[in-house]
């Protein structure tokens, strides 16, 4: 049966594969006692235990942020600007206030604290002050006893706008000095010459995260004058900080709990309704719920930066890169959001995972009156990858090499250096990943089943009308935050007897957004503490920040924090064993862990500090099955006995090793924590007459360092790949004169189950020596190279240059 783990796939202990036709069962699975794993296993690291929230989700009992309710609650609605650019000469809320059932109508004047917020720069108004800079910008908010009342009342607010001509062309914005950030990279000789030169200009349309669960949450005013906010978000503490600042309250009075998140993909990093609901709750003294509609959702969050990328690649006749020059222009829209970081990513990752002696890159982010852009899975690396991978195919053609060969010839490897001068430490299996996807058996040739053909069930295409093409791409992504940002994650772990059974409680503020973070936290606790029963508490701000669920960083950071806290608990247990301090020495106090204890280390045997085998640091002791044994296997004690004196609890704030900023002139600096690589091979069947494309198969190869949960790794790879497929073939927000013209699921198309082909996946586990358990971030890399691989395959089938994504039928049939 297809889909089984291929025999011998683990021959070097570091790789496993999954066949293309589903039935995927990831390794390390089995079953045991109380924890059910996909295919089995004890539920620790490397197994694939089922999601602890899975039963609730399939029963419809998992409470998403739009499912929350409070007695006596009011509903909030937002009045948004119809103009991409206008001054506000006056706002008259009288008619809205007069609507029966309305309890509050608020504008910027009612914001008690900071009137602006933002992740990097606080330039975005909570409510528009004296101008609006994008269509959809919030201007006023209403609380009423019924959602329709709130919206109808909002319609009655009269705003006197002085409409201005919007700036909607990023080139015009750049020329006009509306610069958010310019990141130059200068390495080697700016005037280097080469025998073979290929140039190209590429464009990436505005993609949207389009999560299914709309922006929503509930704000409840607290007796102490503060507010409790239940919201779907990616970073509780960043929300807390900004909400408190806007409310003019100390942070302690703004308490956030994570409500169920219906997908994020970057769009929940920036605030949406958090401050608004809180303002209305504090003003009315009642809980306020806000839920965006779908059109409002499209307008209400940031999008992926559309990009114009100009590349010039110079190489020897043998295809060895001599130089890369690039100019990348990202349209950041109306407000800063995370544009500075996106620009830095695009620049520092802008030549791809290749050895390039001479690099000149200029990446720009500009302000326009288009909808604001910010984080979306891939974060600048997606756009750059489409540029540089399209170039590598042009280069291959120019020097007469096949596309994989030209890439392998230039592949970055361990010890190589990035254009920023940063040395790539740890494995960088660029060549191997390309070879893995290349060497996969090709999918069978097109058959007779219409469902397998372009147009699919529409029965448009017969086998002889089909041209097959194959394309390759490889991408590079940074993992974690960069450029010297002091990123950290905190975990509190408590071990105690509950009903006589040792139970670990893990408490972090980390946002589960579907990636399986709650599962992973429990797995780490099981492995580190040798217990089976783990409870992962609701994420909230009563524990320290876990940082953002973005940048593929959470398993690394929150996983690292949980591991560190577990090890601190282990150390405390050891002390008890030795007759040391009992219960009571465990309260408060968050220990800082600079990551020196237990970074990565040897995967598997060894008993060294830092491996995940349940071995206690330094003592050669083993914690497993609730029993503590020494190196000789003698039982020293049981958790049940040790915990009889009371629980053990430790909190650790965990950091990765520091990064450095990029030099503002040369772009040099050790800016990134970790690099992650994924390669794709896409096989498409094209009907050139009708312009139809069917992705027959997409094969991914990715190095994940250490698969904490193999099943979840596969889910992330499939999910990211599908989003890359969407960008290649169908996803684009049509922004015309600053207005999103297709804010609906019928006009902004995301892939259906019919659009996503069988996926073959090869996973490498080559440990990063600096990372917890050697792991690498997983979520973004597959999104990055999927798009250029698919477009490369279409080019191979059609011979068309295709310099823009998404590719539409009319790009293949001609516009005649």
């Amino acid at each position: 049966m297809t889909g089984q783990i291929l025999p011998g796939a683990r021959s070097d202990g570091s790789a496993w594969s999954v066949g293309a036709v589903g039935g995927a069962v990831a390794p390390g699975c089995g079953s045991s006692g109380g924890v059910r794993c996909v295919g089995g296993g004890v539920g620790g690291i490397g197994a694939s235990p089922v999601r602890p929230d899975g039963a609730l989700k399939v029963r419809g009992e998992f409470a998403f942020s739009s499912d929350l309710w409070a007695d006596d609650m009011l509903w909030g609605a937002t009045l948004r600007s119809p103009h991409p650019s206008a001054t506000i000469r006056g706002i008259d809320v009288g008619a809205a206030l007069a609507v029966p059932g309305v309890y509050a109508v608020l504008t910027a004047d009612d914001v008690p604290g900071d009137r602006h917020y933002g992740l990097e720069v606080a330039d975005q108004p909570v409510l528009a002050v004296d101008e609006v800079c994008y269509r959809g910008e919030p201007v006023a908010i209403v609380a009423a006893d019924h959602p329709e009342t709130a919206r109808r009342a909002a319609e009655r607010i009269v705003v006197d706008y002085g409409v201005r001509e919007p700036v909607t062309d990023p080139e015009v914005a750049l020329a006009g000095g509306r610069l958010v950030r310019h990141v130059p990279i200068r390495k080697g000789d700016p005037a280097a010459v080469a025998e073979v030169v290929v140039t190209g200009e590429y464009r990436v349309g505005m993609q949207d995260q389009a999560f299914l669960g709309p922006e929503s949450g509930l704000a409840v005013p607290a007796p102490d004058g503060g507010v409790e906010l239940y919201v779907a978000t990616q970073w509780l503490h960043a929300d807390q900080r900004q909400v408190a600042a806007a409310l003019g309250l100390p942070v302690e009075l703004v308490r956030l709990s994570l409500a169920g998140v219906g997908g994020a993909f970057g769009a929940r990093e920036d605030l949406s309704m958090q401050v608004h609901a809180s303002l209305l709750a504090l003003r009315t003294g009642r809980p306020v719920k806000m839920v965006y509609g779908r059109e409002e959702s499209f307008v209400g969050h940031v999008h992926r930066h559309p990009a114009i990328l100009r590349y010039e690649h110079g190489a020897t006749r043998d295809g060895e890169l001599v130089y890369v020059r690039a100019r990348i222009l990202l349209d950041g829209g109306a407000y800063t959001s995370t544009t500075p970081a996106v620009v830095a990513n695009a620049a520092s990752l802008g030549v791809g995972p290749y050895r390039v002696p001479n690099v000149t890159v200029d990446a720009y982010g500009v302000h326009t009156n288009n909808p604001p852009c910010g984080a979306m899975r891939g974060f600048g690396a997606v756009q750059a990858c489409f540029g540089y991978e399209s170039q590598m195919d042009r280069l291959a053609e120019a020097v007469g090499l096949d596309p994989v060969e030209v890439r392998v010839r230039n592949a970055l490897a361990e010890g190589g250096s990035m254009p920023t001068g940063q040395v790539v430490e740890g494995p960088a299996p660029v060549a191997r990943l390309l070879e893995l996807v290349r060497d996969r058996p090709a999918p069978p040739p097109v058959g007779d089943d219409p469902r397998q053909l372009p147009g699919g069930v529409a029965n448009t295409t017969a086998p002889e009308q089909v041209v097959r093409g194959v394309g390759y791409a490889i991408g590079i992504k940074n993992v974690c935050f960069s450029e010297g940002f002091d990123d950290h994650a905190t975990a509190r772990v408590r071990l105690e007897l509950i009903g006589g059974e040792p139970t670990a409680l893990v408490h972090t503020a980390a946002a589960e957004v579907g990636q399986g973070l709650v599962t992973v936290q429990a797995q780490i606790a099981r492995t580190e503490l040798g217990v089976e029963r783990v409870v992962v508490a609701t994420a909230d701000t009563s524990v320290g920040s876990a940082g953002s669920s973005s940048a593929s960083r959470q398993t690394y950071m929150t996983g690292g924090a949980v591991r560190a806290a577990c090890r601190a608990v282990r150390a405390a247990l050891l002390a008890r064993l030795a007759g040391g301090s009992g219960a009571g020495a465990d309260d408060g106090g968050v220990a800082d862990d600079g990551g020196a204890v237990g970074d990565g280390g040897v995967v598997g045997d060894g008993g060294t500090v830092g491996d995940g085998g349940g071995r206690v640091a330094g003592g050669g002791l083993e914690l497993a099955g609730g029993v503590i044994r020494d190196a000789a296997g003698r039982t020293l004690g049981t958790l049940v006995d040790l915990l009889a004196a009371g629980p053990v609890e430790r909190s650790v704030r965990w950091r990765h090793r520091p990064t450095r900023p990029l030099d503002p002139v040369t772009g040099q600096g050790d800016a990134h924590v970790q690099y992650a690589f994924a390669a794709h091979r896409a096989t498409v069947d094209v009907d050139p007459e009708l312009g139809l494309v069917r992705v027959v198969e997409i094969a991914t190869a990715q190095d994940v360092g250490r698969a904490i949960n193999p099943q979840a790794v596969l889910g992330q790879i499939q999910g990211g790949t599908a989003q890359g497929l969407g960008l290649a073939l169908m996803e684009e927000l049509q922004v015309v004169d600053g207005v999103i013209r297709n804010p609906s699921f019928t006009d902004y198309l995301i892939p259906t189950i019919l659009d996503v082909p069988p996926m073959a996946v090869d996973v490498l586990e080559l440990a990063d020596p600096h990372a917890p358990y050697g792991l690498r971030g997983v979520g973004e890399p597959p999104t990055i190279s999927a798009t250029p691989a698919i477009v490369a395959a279409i080019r191979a089938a059609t011979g068309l240059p295709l310099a823009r994504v998404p590719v539409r039928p009319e790009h293949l049939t001609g516009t005649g």
Partner: protein
Amino acid sequence: MNPSENADDSRPGVSRRSVLGGGAAVAVAVPLLVTGAGAEAAPVAEVASADLVPIKVEVNGKPVSVRVDPRTTLLDTLREELELTGTKKGCDRGQCGACTVHVDGRRVLSCLTLAATVDEREVTTIEGLARGDRLHPMQQAFIERDGLQCGFCTPGQIMSAVGMVHEGHANSDDEIRERMSGNICRCSCYPFIVDAIRDAQKVMR
């Protein structure tokens, strides 16, 4: 086992299931963006509800009598009036499938179904699939095959899949994809969803 505490478990006063306070009209859909630029803004009196329509409907095997504003969709009635929030509102426009329920055994979109039209009908929602602790084979399969990530589309996927199997259209992976193409998943669990449905339909036969 290993419960993950949920937002509704421990916070006083905030729950997923509280009774909608006395007799207010339930939530009804509203147009597009509120920009104030809509030239056709309704007069304030429009906000008040029209004559309520009494309906008797069997929901998950239990008879329910409610009086609904004719504008109310089945989706909003389930979620707001009957506290059955398992059915999700992803778009409210019939464009994503997250609101899929069964009416008289057929899978339909509850966001485009007026509640008034299900008088004397049988409605099954995701909450009606399991028998106490015993999950429906489709639910079980989605867990075993990890056919979910964020979970928002999951109730709709499961209801749609069960409906599809009953329609007799789950006979191959290709057919499954074709007949599940009305359920969008942004996390793109699609390959695992196909696996889950393939497993479940063997058990359901």
